[in-house]
């Protein structure tokens, strides 16, 4: 890195694993105000493929963690999100979005229902790093009857990949080993190990089976080193995190979704259950309802490129007749497929799978085809059948 980059990185916030990243030889870069590892010496492609075949450890401590609590915290949060929060049982989690009054996405987030405490419902929220301050201010302003406790003393680690469960069971308390590996996707559990409370969820951002573990900052480096001592675990940077989530067809806030896009056109209607579609009662409901009833005017779709050259964010999407019908929001090389993929928004009339289009890169048209996502099948653990 250049002197100016080095100086810029010094100004940044650090996660509790900063020293460990340095010791592991990470290349650090600014992300959402934090010095984050983009890659380690083995490189993005090897980190990506390792996560798909073994298990990758990601530091996602830059993300925002908070607990929203109140006598009816679940119903109250439902006024700001289109997801089903009220029906969440303790120990279950959901993906949803914070919407504004226009039905646009302020952020996407994970909501976990914790056990009630003293007659108060408690929801554990994980939000994006770049938006966390604004999200928390929004929640505090809109839900003054709830208490919002920001957990800035906790780190967040993600252990992702087919070996994640087998590895993690060796690093929880012996009493929880069996139940942790049996947890189904989108469930959560806490564990206490040597006086340290771990909040473990079976979730992630790679399309693989895996876990996210919220842990006190002081205990995080030791826990991470323990996991990294396993032959099946390697540290993975944000570069591979991005290529993994792209292959999994998952949205990246600020790129594929933002405060100009709604959940229906983003292809996130699956996260809006019937009860919420019918009864509404959340910010932006009218716009969301209209998009569901009439179909969105544009839709987020996936593209498989024919050649080897990737198309990236902002590439124009053009029909074979030369008409511009949209723009790419994320794109890159998919290491698991050995070819480039992309996602972006196209006019509803041109969004059918199989549609041939061109993506304009450096003035040249690249042949691409609209395909269903995910590009690489998800491997979530749905529980023992």
């Amino acid at each position, binding site marked *: *890195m*250049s*002197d100016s980059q080095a100086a810029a990185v010094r100004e940044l916030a650090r996660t509790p694993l900063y020293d460990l990243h340095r010791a592991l030889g990470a290349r650090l870069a600014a992300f959402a105000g934090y010095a984050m590892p*983009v*890659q380690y010496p083995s*490189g*993005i*492609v*090897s980190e*990506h493929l390792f996560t798909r075949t073994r298990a990758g450890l990601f530091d996602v401590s830059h993300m925002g963690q908070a607990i929203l609590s109140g006598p009816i915290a679940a119903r109250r949060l439902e006024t700001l999100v289109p997801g089903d929060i009220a029906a969440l049982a303790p120990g279950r989690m959901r993906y949803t979005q914070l919407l504004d009054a226009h039905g646009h996405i302020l952020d996407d987030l994970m909501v976990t229902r914790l056990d009630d405490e003293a007659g108060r419902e408690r929801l554990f929220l994980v939000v994006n790093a770049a938006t966390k301050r604004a999200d928390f201010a929004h929640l505090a302003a809109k839900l003054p009857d709830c208490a919002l406790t920001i957990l800035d003393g906790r780190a967040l680690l993600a252990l992702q990949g087919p070996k994640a469960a087998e590895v993690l069971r060796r690093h929880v308390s012996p009493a929880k080993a069996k139940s942790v590996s049996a947890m189904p996707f989108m469930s959560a559990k806490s564990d206490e190990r040597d006086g340290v409370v771990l909040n473990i969820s079976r979730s992630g951002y790679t399309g693989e089976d895996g876990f996210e573990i919220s842990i006190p900052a002081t205990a995080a480096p030791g826990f991470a080193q323990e996991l990294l001592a396993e032959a099946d675990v390697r540290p993975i940077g944000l*570069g*591979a995190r*991005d*290529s993994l989530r792209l292959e999994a067809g998952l949205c990246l806030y600020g790129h594929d979704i933002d405060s100009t896009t709604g959940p229906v056109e983003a292809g996130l209607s699956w996260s809006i259950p019937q009860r919420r579609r019918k009864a509404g009662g959340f910010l932006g409901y009218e716009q969301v309802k209209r998009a569901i009833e009439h179909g969105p005017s544009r839709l987020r779709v996936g593209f498989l490129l024919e050649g*080897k*050259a*990737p198309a*990236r964010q902002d590439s124009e999407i053009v029909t074979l007749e030369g008409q511009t019908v949209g723009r790419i929001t994320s794109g*890159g*090389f998919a*290491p698991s497929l050995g070819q*480039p993929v992309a996602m972006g928004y196209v006019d509803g009339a041109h969004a059918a799978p199989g549609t041939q289009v061109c993506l304009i890169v*450096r003035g040249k048209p690249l042949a691409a085809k609209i395909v269903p996502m995910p590009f690489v099948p998800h491997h979530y653990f749905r529980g023992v059948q």
Partner: protein
Amino acid sequence: MTTRYTKSHEYVRVEGGTGVVGITDYAQSQLGDLVFVELPPNGRSLSKGAAAATVESVKAASEVNAPVSGTVVDVNSALADSPGLVNEDPSGKGWFLKIKLADAAELDSLMDEDAYLEFLKSVS
């Protein structure tokens, strides 16, 4: 045979009036795994400092500039299927193109190996 380097981490290895152009080991390590290299057609005339090729890593696209002015007389077609050659062997099998120099005097404005290694110390 003389090899000269640019501040943007290209090299040109000159034999007779022709130079082999590529990127340095430092450049490939900074870019990370390359997944695509776009090369100019034979016969294209390039001026010193102009974009000659584009490299795509998993994360981003970057331009490779012509270290000297001249005409492209050959390109490394092996990079079409194996862009990773640039990562594995940047000064050998991972070369980009051959250029017929328009003005050999331009080489004097570039760094020799010692000067480039010294320059690297200042940037890394």
